[in-house]
């Protein structure tokens, strides 16, 4: 196993230093307090500023802890902002796939639907925004679990409700499937929440690759899957392109 990463140790020291007093500190004070070269301290401070852990006063150029640190435990991306920034890509995904599109984020052990684009066939459909879905029985939920947007243990301890005979109810099974989703980069639900219905979903990533939500396509099982009940490869490609495009817009460099 590799030793500690020096720049992370230094970043932690800078945060502790800034947290230590009520006063803002200048670059020189930070560098001399920690025995760092000014250039080194500046690089770390700028990175911390980029992720909103540190703020710089415009007038004096001095540094203090950022507001984001106070909300570390809660989602850092506003759900309404996530919807707004996904809008064009979600529309394009619905247009190209011909199916309904939903975006979900975790909320108190469930999936909150934060955006819904109708299946583009002009049939009567009602807006699902604000609805809650089960984490273990929806493709959106399984993706959020697989990529750590929501912890899986409390769910397994509580016990898994069966919605159909295909719902995953055994903890071992859930863990295996989440592992597969991590490997593939997308997840599916085939008649696990409702008979005759299927869906696929992929993660949306923000800065640093952190998963902030999931985007999914869903519809009748015979349209989402092939005759073997496996999701259509063409749909998966469209879905993953949309997820990557949104992630790129949110600042996830590698996706």
């Amino acid at each position, binding site marked *: 196993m590799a030793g500690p990463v020096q720049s992370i140790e230094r970043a932690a020291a800078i945060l502790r230093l800034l947290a230590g007093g009520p006063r803002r500190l200048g670059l020189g004070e930070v560098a001399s307090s920690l025995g760092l070269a000014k250039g080194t301290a500046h690089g770390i401070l700028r990175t911390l500023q980029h992720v909103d852990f540190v703020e710089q006063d415009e007038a004096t150029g001095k540094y203090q802890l950022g507001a984001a640190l106070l909300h570390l435990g809660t989602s850092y991306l506003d759900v*309404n902002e996530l919807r*707004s920034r996904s809008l064009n890509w979600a*529309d394009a995904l619905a*247009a190209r796939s011909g199916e309904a599109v939903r975006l979900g984020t975790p909320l108190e052990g469930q999936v909150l639907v934060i955006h819904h684009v*109708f299946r583009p066939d002009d049939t009567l459909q*009602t807006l699902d925004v604000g609805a809650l879905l089960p984490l273990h029985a929806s493709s959106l939920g399984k993706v959020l679990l697989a990529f750590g947007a929501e912890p899986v243990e409390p769910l397994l301890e509580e016990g898994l409700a069966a919605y159909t005979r295909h719902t995953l109810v055994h903890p071992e099974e859930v863990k295996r499937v989440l592992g597969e989703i991590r490997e593939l980069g997308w997840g599916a639900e085939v008649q696990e929440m409702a008979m005759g219905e299927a869906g696929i979903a992929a993660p949306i990533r923000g800065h640093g690759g952190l998963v902030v939500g999931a985007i999914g396509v869903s519809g009748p099982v015979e349209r989402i899957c092939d005759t073997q009940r496996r999701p259509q490869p063409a749909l998966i490609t469209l879905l993953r392109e949309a997820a990557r495009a949104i992630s790129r817009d949110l600042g996830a460099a590698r996706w």
Partner: protein
Amino acid sequence: MVERYVMSIDQGTTSTRCILFDHRGRLVSVAQREHEQHFPRPGWVEHDAVEIWRNLQRVVPEALTSARTDPDQIAAIGIANQRETTVLWDRRTGAPLGRAIVWQDTRTASLVEELGKQPGEEFFLERCCLPPSTYFSAPRIRWLFDHVDGLERRAQNGEVLFGTIESWLIWNLTGGRDGGLHITDPTNASRTMLINIHTLDWDEELMEFFGVPRAMLPEIRSSAETYGEADAVLPGVPITAALGDQQAALFGQTCFSPGDAKCTYGTGSFLLMNTGTDAVRSRHGLLTTVAYKIADHPTVYALEGPIAVTGSLVQWFRDRLGLIHSAPEIETLARTVEDNGGCYIVPAFSGLFAPHWRSDARGVIVGLTSYITKGHLARAVLEATGWQTREVVDAMNADSPFTLKRLKVDGGMTSDNLLMQFLADVLDVPVVRPLVAETVSLGAAYAAGLAAGYWPDLEVLRSNWHRAAQWMPEMDPERREWEYACWQRAVERSLGWIQPRSGK
């Protein structure tokens, strides 16, 4: 078979965008560049027409590259543009004579006030169906003649050309000083105050009144026909459509039947209703405008209600008050409370546009008590957009023979679910968002593709339109009426705030 596309150029107030669409009206690629806003004095807004033309020359190849396509795969070019913005340029050199004066610019305010007294509103309403306003182009030409030495004489000698942005771009695209086409379309021409809205020709009396010589005016062609081939940027590709941006959005929303209406929610908002082949003269503070004219088909008209401040109120809340970090967060903040707590905001930042047209109004926040939180203010910010739309819809229903049955919406604010639900609630009709949010670009593409035979008829375009979301009215009627009455009382309090200083 090689796929062919239609190219749409949307020259807007802040940026120039080039978008390619396929046969099913789906977006294939986008390229965009912003241009600089010049504010040389309070109330003045200018653009550099050369910068805009240069941006166009950049975004076109960018859009082609990102779609991995060549100019010979482009079936036609359509142009949508910011309306009323005025460019004057030298016919011989092609150089603009000063910066373009943008539609938001209010330098002609005192001139416009005089026009209201002499010859009076009626003179203009009879001919061009527009009341005098700083919004339109002709007063700007007059202002330039009065403030730039020798300009009027040069114009009379035929050395100067006038155009709104689409004229400037088409002239440059088709060869510029080497035989460039100097043309416009009726949707743009109908916003100059220089045409007779019924004959769609330059009006002798209006030209004489403003002192604008015919030689400087572009030829008025229809909104969709083959104007000519591009010479620069996309040699050989036909240019087949030009529409003002709001009319393009109406077309992109496929509002082809009388009574169809759309509202585009951006910085400001623009509600347009198709009134068919009748130019309905408004008695309730709306503008009569040309919706589109396809080749030699009869002209289709629209009633328009422009609202000056909607999205920009959210921006003000973010940038000036700092109560939110991003515009979409307004919804999060608004949802922290159940209702507005009795608080209303009338955003008359530079007076009120439709249906009031009161330049003496200024913004007010009313109903403040110690109970009010920033959450209530956020609600009031969103509700202001809802109620302003309601006022325009009421005027539409009073003016036109059609009653609004549903409202098609587009623009950035349609991502706000709380606002869209509120809109359905206060209008008491379903609010519908289409699958393609880029309706301005789509409308220009549709008109261009129609003229080029890429799409056969309006029916095919209609079948390309799909519903992406719909909000149904849920508000209790009694509550709706009470809230509306409160809003109207708030508006009354915003009126007449600006008064001349005493002792002057």
